[in-house]
């Protein structure tokens, strides 16, 4: 194994001992959580959860799921996939439901859409993922949560293209970095908001890491999350950190619909717990 393959431990940047205290001054110091999302409920913002589906009638979701699609691998179809409507989505594992529950708890009036890109057939994982993201970009989604990634190099360029497309269409993409010793896309691209886990519990407390590619740390350790069959489990993973940031981005988006992805990232940075806003 070459050194190149040894990935740094992404979440270590968010451990207490490693956290860097940063500061912001000048006009950007005026940005505050109160300004950014105070009073917002995410009302009317369409959020796509690109994942294993969402159990739409899970009690944790209070009927916030408005529909969705299932991207299935299909060898006969153009580009080996087809997109089926999924008006009352279900979840093949529980993972997407967990992410949806976290987003809904933070942004209770946002409208959630399930983009299921996982299924029994694993041959088409990469193309299903890319097609699901493409669907979200082209179908009016305003924020996209991707607690998924691929390490398949074949999808590097395609995903890069899609991610740039989302960026130019003002759709913030929130991506969980994968905690495995391999690169994972699209979490490592600069135009996404990449998230790893920290040990805190407060859903609104997150940190900025000045040493990219992973820029934000949000709660993801021993989080009580919704799961399939109307159940809950306590789980750990960067997968659960990303939807915390997705929830906050949704609140910002609802309150300040004019902001672009790079402006939203700036707001997130200025409002991070380890960034001291100095009044000047």
């Amino acid at each position, binding site marked *: 194994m070459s050194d*190149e393959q040894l990935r740094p431990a992404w979440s270590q940047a968010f451990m207490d001992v490693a956290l860097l205290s940063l500061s912001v001054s000048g006009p950007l110091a005026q940005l505050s959580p109160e300004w950014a999302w105070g009073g917002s409920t995410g009302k009317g913002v369409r959020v796509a959860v690109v994942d294993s589906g969402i159990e739409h009638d899970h009690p944790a979701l209070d009927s916030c799921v408005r529909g969705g699609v299932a991207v299935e691998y299909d060898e006969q179809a153009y580009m080996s996939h087809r997109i089926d409507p999924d008006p009352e989505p279900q979840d093949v594992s529980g*993972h997407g439901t967990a992410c949806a529950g976290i987003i809904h708890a933070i942004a209770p009036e946002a409208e959630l859409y399930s983009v299921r890109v996982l299924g*029994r057939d694993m041959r088409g994982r990469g193309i299903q993922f890319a097609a699901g993201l493409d669907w979200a970009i082209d179908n009016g989604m305003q924020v996209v949560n991707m607690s998924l990634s691929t390490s398949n190099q074949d999808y*590097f360029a395609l995903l890069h293209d899609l991610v740039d497309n989302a960026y130019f269409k003002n759709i913030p993409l929130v991506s969980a970095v994968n905690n495995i010793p391999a690169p994972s*896309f699209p979490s490592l691209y600069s135009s996404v908001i990449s998230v790893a886990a920290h*040990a805190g519990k407060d859903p609104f407390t997150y940190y900025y890491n000045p040493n990219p590619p992973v820029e934000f740390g949000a709660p993801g350790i021993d989080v009580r999350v919704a799961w399939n069959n109307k159940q809950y*489990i*306590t*789980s750990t993973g960067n997968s659960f950190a990303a939807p915390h940031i997705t929830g906050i981005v949704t609140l910002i988006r609802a309150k300040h619909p004019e902001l672009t992805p790079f402006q939203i990232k700036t707001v997130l940075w200025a409002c991070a717990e380890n960034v001291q806003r100095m009044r000047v």
Partner: protein
Amino acid sequence: MTEELSNQNPSTQDSQLAEQLERLVRSIQASGHAVLPRSSDALLQSIVAAAARIFGAGAASIALIDEKKGTLDFKVAVGPGNTDVVGMSIPRDKGIAGYVAMTGQPIAVSNVEQDARFAQDFARSTGYMPRSILATPLLSNERVIGVMEVLDKIQAASFGLQDMELLGMFAHQAALAIDISQQFDRLGEALIYGLTRLADAETAVAMPDLLAALEKIKVEDPQGSDLLALADLFNQISQLGSAERRACLKVLAVFAEYGSAKAKFSRGGFGR
């Protein structure tokens, strides 16, 4: 003796050679399919044992994906109920291991006993009820080939992110061990394939017995046949003139450079 041999009918020589070859190839096949996986199982077993010890885990296991059956088959395990776990198959899309196999993302779950479904599934199949689970994918060439799990961190309620990152490295070792044993499997197949082609080629002496012997042990779908096709191409190229060879080399060099640059770009930026 020499006299006798040279007077022998060429086809008799051929049949003796074929017989020897068949024995040889069969033993290579046997070592590929039986001996090496056994030694790689021992390696996998030692990896899960080491992982369990380092994480302070009550149990650990490795399950591999069977694409045809759509299952996760437990290959090695340590801890209580380990003999029941080995040989067990679960649907590839069920439970924590199924989730990891499906997504390629690691996950940790604590307070497992509070979740009726996982607890029941697990208890039913193994008679062992874990409190916490940490599961990570085994990746081979960026494809999920299996799942490694450690259960019940001793003296802690749950596995943390550092445990998750560390288990990823153990899983990488396990995946390498599996890769190596699969490559040995392919070595036998490649040899048979190569010999068949040789016997089949338009040589001065026909080797019908050899061909027949090889036919008997023929591999249906030699894996890595694209590599063999590449070797064939090299052979053809080597027979060309020196100018053609140089031109081919240039093309290949550019392609190799492109390939490594692609890998570098896609991994770039975080070389620290």
